[in-house]
């Protein structure tokens, strides 16, 4: 027998917010797993990209505690492979933005050693701070 999953108001609000920020119709995801299958970062993630899509779809805000969205480096491998033409990297960016807009940064400049600061190219530092700070 089919089982109906009914989202509460907070769940709907979360789903709408992520869909608006990402510009992606997350509810179109078929859960085929192609994004997870090709993700070069999968070994580092605690929740697979396709599971992230599902959790957002059913309004599970606790997915914000997963480290997956911070591990995603927008390499766009999933973007070019999704059979539904959904851009999972935009969804990850939207999730990061929700946290960053609460003024919670994911990088601490104090933790970069002097030795590292000397050798890191500007492209790495600017890139990391643009992605990890609000």
């Amino acid at each position, binding site marked *: 027998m089919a089982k109906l999953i009914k989202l509460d108001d907070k769940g709907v609000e979360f789903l709408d917010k992520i869909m608006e920020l990402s*510009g992606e119709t997350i509810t179109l995801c078929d859960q085929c797993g192609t994004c997870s299958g090709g993700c070069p970062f999968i070994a580092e993630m605690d929740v697979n990209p396709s599971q992230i899509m599902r959790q957002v779809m059913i309004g599970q805000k606790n997915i914000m505690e997963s480290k997956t969205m911070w591990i995603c480096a*927008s390499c766009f*491998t999933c973007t*070019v492979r999704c059979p539904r033409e959904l851009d999972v990297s935009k969804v990850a960016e939207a999730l990061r933005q929700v946290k960053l807009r609460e003024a919670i940064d994911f990088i601490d400049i104090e*933790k970069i050693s002097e030795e590292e600061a000397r050798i890191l190219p500007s*492209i790495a530092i600017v*890139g990391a701070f643009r992605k990890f700070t609000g």
Partner: protein
Amino acid sequence: MKLPYFPGCTLKTTATNLEIPALEVAKRLGIEMIELDRWNCCGVVSYLVSDDLMKHLAPVRNFLRVQEMNAKGIVENENRLVTLCSMCYNTLSLSNKRMQKNPDDLQKINDFMHREETKYDGSVEVVHLLPIIRELGWEAVRKQVKKPLKNIKVASYYGCMLLRPKDVGIDDAEDPQILEELVSALGGETIDWDSGSRCCGSYHTVNNKDIVVNLSKGIIDDARKNGADVIITSCPLCAFNLDSRQKDIMEKYPEFESMPVVFFSQLMGAAFDIEKEKLGWEANYISPELLF
């Protein structure tokens, strides 16, 4: 051919070995790359969410400089903006596409830049040097080769930013050939491998070095397994992760065998036999000098 050129921050600091040989080989192919006046950082990574247009201001402002170069007659009717760095190419392209597709966004950005003398009209086309060379034809490259790359097997590493997303990719996202075609025109051999467009870990190199160590090791090991002597790239961040991070890979995996990683422009420069001081080998962490 005179083209407006956007160098980006890293080409002026840690990746001079990408820029200097590139300008020289381009010159030999009849391409004069003229640096934009007052260019600013593109922002490195593209901003992917739908709101907060402010993050697109930095990339878009550079396009005004292209229009100004045309207005001043420095270039003639040239709407192409050429780049060398894969990340600059990607970020500038994505912001440009957004402006071209969304007139309202463009209007807002122009309103914000009201103190500029020009308004961006959406006419610029962001290009990478590699497709410009492909358009000239590989025969033109072959004619400039003075020292063909004999007995060197090259792993073409595209990374992410030259290929994805599809609407900014310079070649097929799953089966790119442009670097292989270039190496072949230079008289070299390429390897067939699976890691050519696999991410190196990107900016994680700043606060999660282990991710980069693991991914870069996987890429270099795969290149070696398939018989490569050297890896080529056009991305200064990939170059740092694949080349300089070999120090960290060796610390974690003592059995690891190092491999030189060079920019495509250095490989071209070596085959064109440009002046040694313009090749910039000393800026590579693992010295490629013995190969060439």
